[in-house]
Structures are given as C-alpha cells and as structure tokens.
C-alpha cells in the first residue's frame, strides 16, 4: 500500500509540493484582497463616515446646519445634526455608513481599471492612460539600458582587477549614498524639460548600485575555474571573455532583474520633476481630483507590469541558462542544428580530406572497452 505523507506546512527546510506552493501563491494575493473586501463590504467593520443621501430640513437652525446632500461626514457630526433636527421637529437627515474616500471598494477599483483606459483625456493635449504607461516604460527602459551599458562592463572590470576596483569603487560608493532625486533640479537645468532629465534620474538611481553589485557578483567567480582555464592556455583577456563573463551570466541576469525593480522606484520621482509625465503624472492628477479608485487602479497597474515583466524575465532566464535550470530543449535544438550543419558541410567537401585528417587510430575503442 502506498503511504501518502501528509503535507507538513511549517516544516523547517523542507520543500512543499508543487500543489501546496500554488495554493500558497494564490493565497498570497487572495488574503489581502479578502481583507480589503471585508473592510469594504461588511458594514460596521470600519465604516467611520456617513454618506448623506438626504440632508433633511436644511432650514432648521443649528451648529451642524451645513449638512448637505452628497456630503461625507463623521458619524458623530451626522448624529449631532439629527439631534438638532429632532429638537426642531423637522424631517431627519438620511444617510448610510461609508468608508473614507481614500479607500474605494474593490469593485470600484476594478471598474476604474477598465474605465481609466476607455476615458478620453479630460483636457485637450493630455494623453490617454495607455500612452502614459507606454511613456513610463520607455523612460525605465532607456534609463536602465544606459546604466547597464556602462555599469556592467565597469562592474566586471572592478570585479576582475584590483586596479579598477580601487580606482572606481570608493567614489561610486560615495555617490551611491546620495539619493537620486536630489539630482532632479540639476538634471532639469542640464537637460531641459524633456525626457532626458527623467532618464538621467533612472540612470543615476541604478548605475552606481549596479557597478557595486556587478563587481561583487564578479568576485564570486570560482578561482579554480580561472586556474583550470589558464592550464588550458587561456590568456588574460580570454579569462575574462571565456570564463568570467559566462560564469557570472546567470547571477548577472538575476542582479539586473533586481535592479529593474529599483528603476521603477525612481520612476515616480523622475516623472514628477520638470514637466510631469507618464503614469506618475496620471496618479498625481487623479489624486488631485480625488479619484482614488483611479489612483489604486494605476498603482496596481505598475505592480502588474513589474510582476509580469519579472516573471517573463525569469522564464527567459530558465531558457538562457540551461546548465542552472535544467531546461535543456534549447541546448538539444542547438546541438541538433550544429550536427545538421556539420553533415551539410561534410557533404559539400571531398570525403578523402576528412578522413586523412582524422586523429590517430591507435586510441579508438578504448573508452568503450572500459566504460
């Protein structure tokens, strides 16, 4: 009889089954949503305010006579007004308990998620939401690409050689402690009002971290591999290109994924300097109109873009680095194509040439004998 072992949810250092992992991943999102629903839909959990539907007899005098239809007031104020109205013998005010405006219910945010995209910009010359999002992605992309183009080579140089490490890292470390937003005014002064200052803030926010992180990743290269490569005849530049770079590539990729997260952090600051733009400008505007459902919707959008992009990169990484992930289909495809190309080439060439250059016959068959 097969013995099925009970899932031990809290066991230390024991992996969970794939099913248990999916359940927990789902729960990670559903639990906060459930709390939000609870607060929004179940009355008396919180609901500290009253949404006034009918102000009653507004002519009745009193300290709280300002109460009007559509207002969102404290429960205390509402109760006091009704006491005043009752004392005056007037018609009572009507209302229902409500949460503050900054906490819209899930369905309102869900609706806003759709309508935010379908609503035309309110002012002439403003952009649609999807255009704002696309603009934000471009700022991130270019800021990050410029940072990586300079930061990765510099980081690898620092990791490989003490010379570059001593020359660069102290200064980079110094600048790293300066928050990127403080360069905002400077960036606008230098680059003007366009996208350049925004890209430069993303650059400053990620570049200096990147140099240090890449340098540290590079230092983790197994010295034994470098020594092995030297005994195989690798020259110094080949050590870098043939050993250091391929060996750190998976970790480098992981570093880049983390640093893209940093770039999103600086995006909000970058977009609010100079001429406001992108998703942050949209959030800023909606917050001023007190459309908090739109604010939540756009915050969730940023989260979703980040999550989806990171998951895509993670899956891409599995394919790119099969020796770490064990996802071998690309390797098999490549070797099959190489074998095909080999067959094609040897088919073109005269056969005698191929045979005459083959290695010494004396060694053939030994491996099979012993294996």
């Amino acid at each position, binding site marked *: 009889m097969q013995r099925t072992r009970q899932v031990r949810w809290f066991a230390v250092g024991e992996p969970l089954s794939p099913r248990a992992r999916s359940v927990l991943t789902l729960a990670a999102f559903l639990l906060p949503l459930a709390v939000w629903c609870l607060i929004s839909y179940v009355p008396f959990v919180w609901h500290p305010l009253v949404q006034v539907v009918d102000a009653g007899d507004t002519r009745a005098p009193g300290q709280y006579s300002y109460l009007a239809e559509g207002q969102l007031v404290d429960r205390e104020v509402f109760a006091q007004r009704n006491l005043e109205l009752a004392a005056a013998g007037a018609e009572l005010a009507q209302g229902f308990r409500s949460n503050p405006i900054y906490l819209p219910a899930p369905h309102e945010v869900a609706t806003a998620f759709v309508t935010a995209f379908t609503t035309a910009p309110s002012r002439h010359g403003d952009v649609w939401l999807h255009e704002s999002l696309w603009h934000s992605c471009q700022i991130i992309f270019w800021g990050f690409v410029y940072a990586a183009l300079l930061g990765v080579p510099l980081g690898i140089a620092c990791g490989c050689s003490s010379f570059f490490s001593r020359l660069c890292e102290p200064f980079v470390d110094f600048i790293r402690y300066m928050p990127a937003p403080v360069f905002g005014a400077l960036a606008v002064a230098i680059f003007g009002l366009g996208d350049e200052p925004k890209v430069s803030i993303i650059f400053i926010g990620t570049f200096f971290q990147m140099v240090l992180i890449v340098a540290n990743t590079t230092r983790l290269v*197994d010295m*034994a*591999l470098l*020594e*092995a*490569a*030297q*005994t*195989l*005849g*690798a*020259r110094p530049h*080949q050590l870098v290109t*043939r*050993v250091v770079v*391929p*060996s750190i*590539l998976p970790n480098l990729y992981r570093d880049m994924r983390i640093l893209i997260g940093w770039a999103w952090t600086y995006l909000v600051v970058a977009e609010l300097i100079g001429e406001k733009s992108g998703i942050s400008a949209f959030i800023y505007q909606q917050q001023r109109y007190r459309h908090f459902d739109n604010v939540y919707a756009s915050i969730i959008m940023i989260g979703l873009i980040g999550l989806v992009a990171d998951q895509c990169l993670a899956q891409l990484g599995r394919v790119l*680095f*099969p*020796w*770490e992930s*064990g996802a*071998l289909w690309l*390797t*098999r495809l490549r*070797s099959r194509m190489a074998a095909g190309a*080999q067959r094609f*080439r040897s088919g073109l060439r005269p056969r005698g040439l*191929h045979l005459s*250059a*083959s*290695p010494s016959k*004396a*060694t*053939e*068959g*030994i*491996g*099979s*004998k*012993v*294996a």
Partner: protein
Amino acid sequence: MLDALPDYRDPPPDARAHLEQLRQRDTVLRLEDVSRVFTCAEGPLTALEGVRFEVRHREFICVIGASGCGKSTLIRILAGLDAPSSGQVLLDDQPVDLPGADRGMVFQRYTLFPWLTVRDNVTFGLRLKGASAAQVAREADHWLEVIGLGAFADRYPAQLSGGMKQRVAIARALANRPRILLMDEPFGALDAQTRSQMQTHLLDIWHATDVTVFFITHDLDEAVYLADRVVVLAARPGRVEEIIEVPLGRPRNPRSRLDPYFLAARQRLEQLIHP
C-alpha cells in the same frame, strides 16, 4: 607472510626491461632544487626545499607523501600557477614560468566549466587557440570516444557523476596535446570502486597517447598500481625522501594488485610514509 615478499629492488625480467628502457628516454621535465617559502603571520614557512628529480618521456610518475608535505605546492609550481622561491623547473629545457597549454592539469576539485556541455568542455583549449570548427568537431568526437562518453556529449557537467566529470577533465587536458599531464589527486573525491575503475581507465588512456603523466596522490596502492616510479616526499620541509622504481611490467590490470612485487613495493612505501 610479509617475510616471503620478494625484494622490490630486484624486479622480474619484464619489469626490469621496462625500467631499463625508461632510463634510455629523453628527459621531459627537470626539477632543479625547487624550493618554496611562504610568508605567514608566524614567520616564513618552508613548503618545499631543494626538490630535485627528472621525469622522462612517456613516464608515469607518482608523488606521494603525508598531507602537508607540499605535494600540491609542487604540482602548482609545475603548472605555473605558483612560482618557486628558488630553483627552477625546466620543461624540454625551457624554464617554466606561467601556466600554458603544454602542461595540462586535472584538479582534485571538479573544475569543468558548468555553462559548457561535455563536448564544449573537451574542446575548450582548442577553441582558445582558434582551431577551425571542423578540427574542433573531429577532436571532440575522438576524445569523447577515448573516454567513452560519446552518449553524454550534450550533457552539462551538473548532470554527470564524479567519475564522469574527471574523465571529461582528463579529455579536456589531453585534447590540447600537452607535453605532460599534471594530475593533483584527481580521484581523491571518488568512492573506492569508481576510483579503481578510473585508475585502470587512466592507464588505458595513457597507453593510447604519448603523454607523460605526473600524478599526485596520498594513496599508496594507487601510486604503485599506476606509476613507473614513485617519488616519496617527506614533510616539513617538503623534500624528496626516496624515489622507488615500481617492479611491475606493463600493461597492468587489476590483478597486478595481487602480484608479490606490488605488495613488496607497497610495503616499502608504507615504511617510508609511516615509519
């Protein structure tokens, strides 16, 4: 029973002929009073002192010694990964300075490149030299056949057993056609059974190629089974205590381990290492 063992210095005729023939050969590697002093916090530490011997062409030489006798320092100096404090190492009468493709090395730790397949690991040295694609493919097929891992050509090192990894490491070093193959306790991390299979396998590969092997071990049986001569290092400071000619002919096979001359040589090494 041990008294009944023959004298290891008086080998049987086939072994005598083999050793005689060996003495006629050219010297490949010459160690001239190699010393290495490390500067430690507690003061200078002499790892090697005046090590002097020669290795002949196609010879299989083993170096044994207790741990801390400078075996690894010695082989690292030969590889060019470390430099002697005094004295010099000559390969074909040329002083050894930096690491180079003429001295292939197999390490105790697995040092295959994890991002390369078995095939690409084997041809790493060739590709460094810029060999043509056709030559690289040909050499890869050849060496994969020699080590019997043709079916594993497209596997990554992480998918191989310890013994397989070391076979690939041997092929990787030999594909460069080095003058000498340096092996630093290559089978030290393997289990006993795999280890003895690998020893026989290594002898087969050695017979099939014309490479000289310089093999470091602390396993007496391994040294006697593999070597033509065994260099015994004494510890603190590391120096040559004695060089023993193994009184066994070639080729050898696992039954050689039961040969009285095998046991005699082994007993002598035992006396030297654990007096």
